[in-house]
């Protein structure tokens, strides 16, 4: 029952964020939780998009194929784009809806932590995926240096 209530509160706060309703002190705790969940969702979407685009890039022939570089480039584009989009979204769309004073103070640097979670989590998961799938196209994200 308690679990259902918490999920409901989180969903409500996400809805609040989406509808840009004013967030009071009571709702900040839920907003913090939803921010971290949002961060995880952002991270997941960024990883998914980077993986899809990397797989869509075809292996090229020739002596100096550019496709491994392109995959790496898209990985790092999403590594930057994900956290930046999250940070800007919170800065421009969410934080202005939090009531100034104790509510805003309580929210503090949650969005910055969320941004850091996205960045670090994205790179860590990207690295793990790249090593796990070194025979596939994602292997180009972190190529083996051995020769």
């Amino acid at each position, binding site marked *: 029952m308690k679990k259902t209530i918490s999920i409901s509160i989180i969903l409500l706060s996400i809805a609040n964020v989406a509808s840009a309703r004013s967030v009071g002190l009571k709702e900040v705790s839920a907003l913090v939780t939803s921010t971290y969940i949002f961060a995880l969702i952002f991270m997941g979407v960024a990883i998914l998009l980077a993986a899809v685009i990397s797989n869509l890039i*075809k*292996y090229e*022939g*020739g*002596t100096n*194929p550019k496709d*491994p570089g392109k995959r790496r480039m898209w990985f790092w584009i999403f590594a930057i784009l994900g956290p930046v989009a999250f940070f800007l979204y919170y800065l421009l769309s969410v934080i202005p809806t939090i009531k100034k004073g104790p509510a805003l103070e309580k929210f503090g640097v949650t969005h910055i932590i969320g941004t850091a979670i996205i960045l670090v989590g994205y790179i860590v998961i990207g690295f793990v995926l790249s090593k796990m799938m*070194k*025979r*596939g*196209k994602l*292997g*180009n994200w972190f*190529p*083996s240096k*051995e*020769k």
Partner: protein
Amino acid sequence: MASTDKYFVIGIGGTGMRCLEAFTHMCAMGMFDNKEINVLTLDTDFTNGNKQRTENLIKSYNSIKSYGSDGDGSVNNNSFFSAKLNLFQFVTDYDNQDKRTFRKITNLESENTELSDNQLLADLFLGEDVQEFDLSHGYRAQTHLGSYLMYHAFLETAKKLKSGKDIPESERPFASYLRKLTDAKSDAKVFVFGSIFGGTGASSIPVIPKALNDAIKMYSGGANSLDKGAKFGATLLTEYFKFNKPADAQKANKEDAVIADSSFFTLNSQAALQFYQSDPTVQSTYKKMYHIGWPIDIKDFSKDQSDSKTITGGKAQKNPCHITEFMCACAAWDFFNSDTGLEVKTADYLYKSVRYKDNRLDFNFNDFIGDGENGKLFARKFGGFNAFMHLVLTKSEGALDNDGVNSLLTRINESTQAYSSIGTEFTSLLNNYFRSFGYVFDAGVFKPGWMYQIKSTVNGSLVLDDTAYTTVAKELKNLEPGKLFSEKEYHWKDTTLRGDTFDPFIKHLKKEETEPDDEQNVSTSTEKFIAHMYKAIHTSSKI
């Protein structure tokens, strides 16, 4: 196929050398899995262009095989370059001034009188011009002289080898070849390549079994001989090319008074066939003889030559390759893979025909080594090696000034470190082999290798779709290695939505399941790399 069989191939003269060239490419395709083959090149001229080209090709093949191994490489299975080739050479060395003409070899010049017995005997069989022409460019279609001299050269060399004195370095390999033949006993399967309409090949084919037998006897001091159970096979290759008729001015020179005239090749072929049919020695020594001929558009070897003189031999004799030579190599495949028909008392003549319609000869994969399973095997190996060639030369730009093999290796190295020890020395060797097999762009101009030369002699289709043989750079750029066959069911399994086969192939190449297995019998990293490519190509294909 008995596993104890020992394989020997002898290429004689210019045509024999080009057959050997085709044979070597068949080995590279993986048509002779698990076989160690002793190859003897036999010619009258060290500098002959065809001989040098073939020997360089075999050396290049062996460099690829032996790279990274202690010895000369090993036999492999289900792979490209799977056969092991041991190269031996025998040259009659008529470049030597003392051996330049028949008169010099036989010491007729020292005869005091024109009525000496030796002189009279020579005059009975040979015209004066035949006795005096320069032998260093071969027997010039004088087969009656050639057979005698080739037999003589075998015995003289064997005698020298037996004595152990003053043996030139170039003659030592012949001793090894004789020893291998002796050791093989009744397991020896010897296949002889040569034409029956020219000079050196036509002269040597009838006498080779006897000459080898007598040379072994001579070399062993009578202790050994060629085992009676040794099996011989040969091609009966009739005329398929022509060249300029020699001008009178060229023939005015005593040394060039006798020059092979291609207008007589048909007559020569007819005479030779009659001889083979009636000669008891040939009939009893050869088990299988493969009739190979060319019914249309005889290739003119002089067409693109600027020299007005007829080329009699030497460095300049570097003729392009022809489909008939490939058919000869396929005859060797049939002979080596024959279990039956080898116990016959007289030679069996074999032939097969090819579709001919509207002045077109169309070859499909069932026309080379047989249909059914053999046809499929041919399609798999021929198609696979051509796909490998296009992956290297076309997709990875190895036909330009690049190392296409290294590009493919880099791709595999992204997924495994098994080949990290392979350097560019090896990859450029393999790349160059493909250039000689396929094609090369030299200053933007397309230069055909063996495969494209073969195709240029066929006015119809040749196993693959006609688009697979395009020589236009733009079309080559769009060529798909997985779609070389006209038959869609033989295209590679995986393609992208837009029909690209390179991307799915590289995906497949990087998978663990395409790594070589024990059955392929590979040990060095270079052998493993080639076997890996083979497996990736063949598991991509539906054949």
